[in-house]
């Protein structure tokens, strides 16, 4: 038993050493392998999801495919979840992560988030047209549906509505409440609201109104932190800049999300200048 434990420990230490930073140039490695391994989400439509055949599809898998095409290598998609995506990148299990990750200073210490960022989600309200809502100030005294624990709830309640929010645990419940007329609008991520409105006819009497009182949260794609300033990180920075400039992201968003969000329209226009 003791010997077994000793052997296991030796293996683990040995593995830890060999898993350390060893690659000098990841980009050359990817080309040598002939495969680009990208971590994407499988539970976040339309950015990363599975179809019934099991294939991973969405806006981010298409972005990954474009990177592979530019490198002239095959693409391998690895499903990641929020709890393991950064670890997969650190360990070298994936070369690139495009997984709906918000860009935060804490995360920038762990993984190499590439600038410019490729996407951002702002705060918006899916509001009944009859309510005539144009901005957050118009919500005063009105019942508003929201999700429990969203970062803007406190502000929304104390600065704008001035009354308790109609808060729910899940998106579907909140939407049902909105359809049932229990609130004038549902406050949530603009990108998801835009997508859902485009998907279903039942939102015909509703508009997605941006609430610019809250700054959009950028989404970053990431490489290993040691690679950020190396050839691989620089290559991805160029690719992202080109996606914005050439309108590739706008086209992809149009295809998957259904219509373009203000942040991306703005970022693409700025990149063109």
């Amino acid at each position, binding site marked *: *038993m003791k010997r077994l434990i000793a052997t296991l420990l030796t293996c*683990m230490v040995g593995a830890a050493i060999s898993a350390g930073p060893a690659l000098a140039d990841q980009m050359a490695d990817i080309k040598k392998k002939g495969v680009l391994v990208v971590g994407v989400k499988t*539970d*976040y439509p339309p950015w990363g999801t599975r179809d*019934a055949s099991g294939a991973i599809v969405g806006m981010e898998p298409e972005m990954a495919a474009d990177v592979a095409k530019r490198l002239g290598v095959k693409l391998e998609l690895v*499903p990641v979840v929020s*709890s*393991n995506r950064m670890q997969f990148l650190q360990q070298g299990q994936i070369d690139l992560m495009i997984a709906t990750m918000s860009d935060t200073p804490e995360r920038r210490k762990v993984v190499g988030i590439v600038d410019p960022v490729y996407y951002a989600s702002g705060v918006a309200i899916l509001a009944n047209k009859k309510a005539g809502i144009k901005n957050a100030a118009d919500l005063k005294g009105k019942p508003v549906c929201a999700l429990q624990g969203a970062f803007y709830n406190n502000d929304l309640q104390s600065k704008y509505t001035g009354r308790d929010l109609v808060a729910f645990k899940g998106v*579907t419940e909140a939407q049902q409440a909105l359809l049932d007329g229990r609130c004038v609008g549902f406050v949530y991520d603009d990108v998801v609201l835009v997508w859902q409105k485009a998907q279903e006819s039942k939102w015909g009497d509703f508009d997605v109104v941006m609430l610019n009182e809250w700054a959009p949260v950028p989404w970053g794609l990431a490489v290993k932190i040691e690679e950020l300033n190396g050839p691989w990180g620089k290559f991805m920075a160029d690719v992202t800049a080109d996606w914005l400039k050439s309108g590739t992201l706008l086209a992809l968003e149009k295809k998957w999300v259904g219509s373009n969000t203000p942040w991306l329209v703005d970022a693409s226009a700025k990149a063109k200048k």
Partner: protein
Amino acid sequence: MTAGSVPAPLLTPRWLATAALLCCAALAAGEAWAQLQTGGTRPGVLATLWKWTPLVLFGPPREFGGFALNIAVSFLAMAIGTLAGLVLGLGLVSNFAPVRRLSWLVTQFFRNSPWLVLLFFVMLLTPFQLRVAGIVIPLPGWLKATVGLSLPIMANVAEIVRGAINSIPTGQWESAESLAFSRLQTLWRIILPQCVKRMIPPWMNWYAILTMATPLISIVGVNDAMTLTQDALAAEQRSELLMPMYTLLLFFFFVYCYPIARWTIHLERRYAVRN
């Protein structure tokens, strides 16, 4: 119980018929409700379930996943856990005090730790590949998860082994000793063969528990039936599918585990009579 008592049938037909009827009624009600909600514009619940069933059962094409992976993980974790548990269980009855104490410590540790915490430990502590003498051995997530699940199985099998050995009357040891059998010989040739029968029912019980615990591996990012069910639910974005989808998953596990449970009870009764 008398030797003449009839063993319980493996699957009671009346019981199964009732269950099937209830399932169908629930599905039909769900279907009607969904049609009412959507005005009949979307594919029905049954059609949607049918669409996703192959993926949930067998995983994505050219990949090992889905319910098949749950079963494979349960087999492998049981095999590893049983072998390791046998060694650990013999350690628990060792005459050599340090081995006995160490075995006791390991057993208690793994018996009393939450399975999910153990899973996270194994997932985070081990790398995704090993480099041994220049050869790269990949350690896929499902393999790491299997090892993680085999640890509590090991500890519980060890306890089963210890209990079975202790349940053999001491007279057996004494007679073996008088016949000049060594301790090892006594254990292998006399005690353990008698233990097997007693160990099988609790061992099968642990197998069923392990199988039902395999959806835990979805939390650490393995493509098992639970992960794929959640992916399917995310892709569909329809709240009325929540219950039917999870019911389908439950049904797969039930169909697999229920016969094992019945068989365990059957064996328990049979061996109880003979002993």
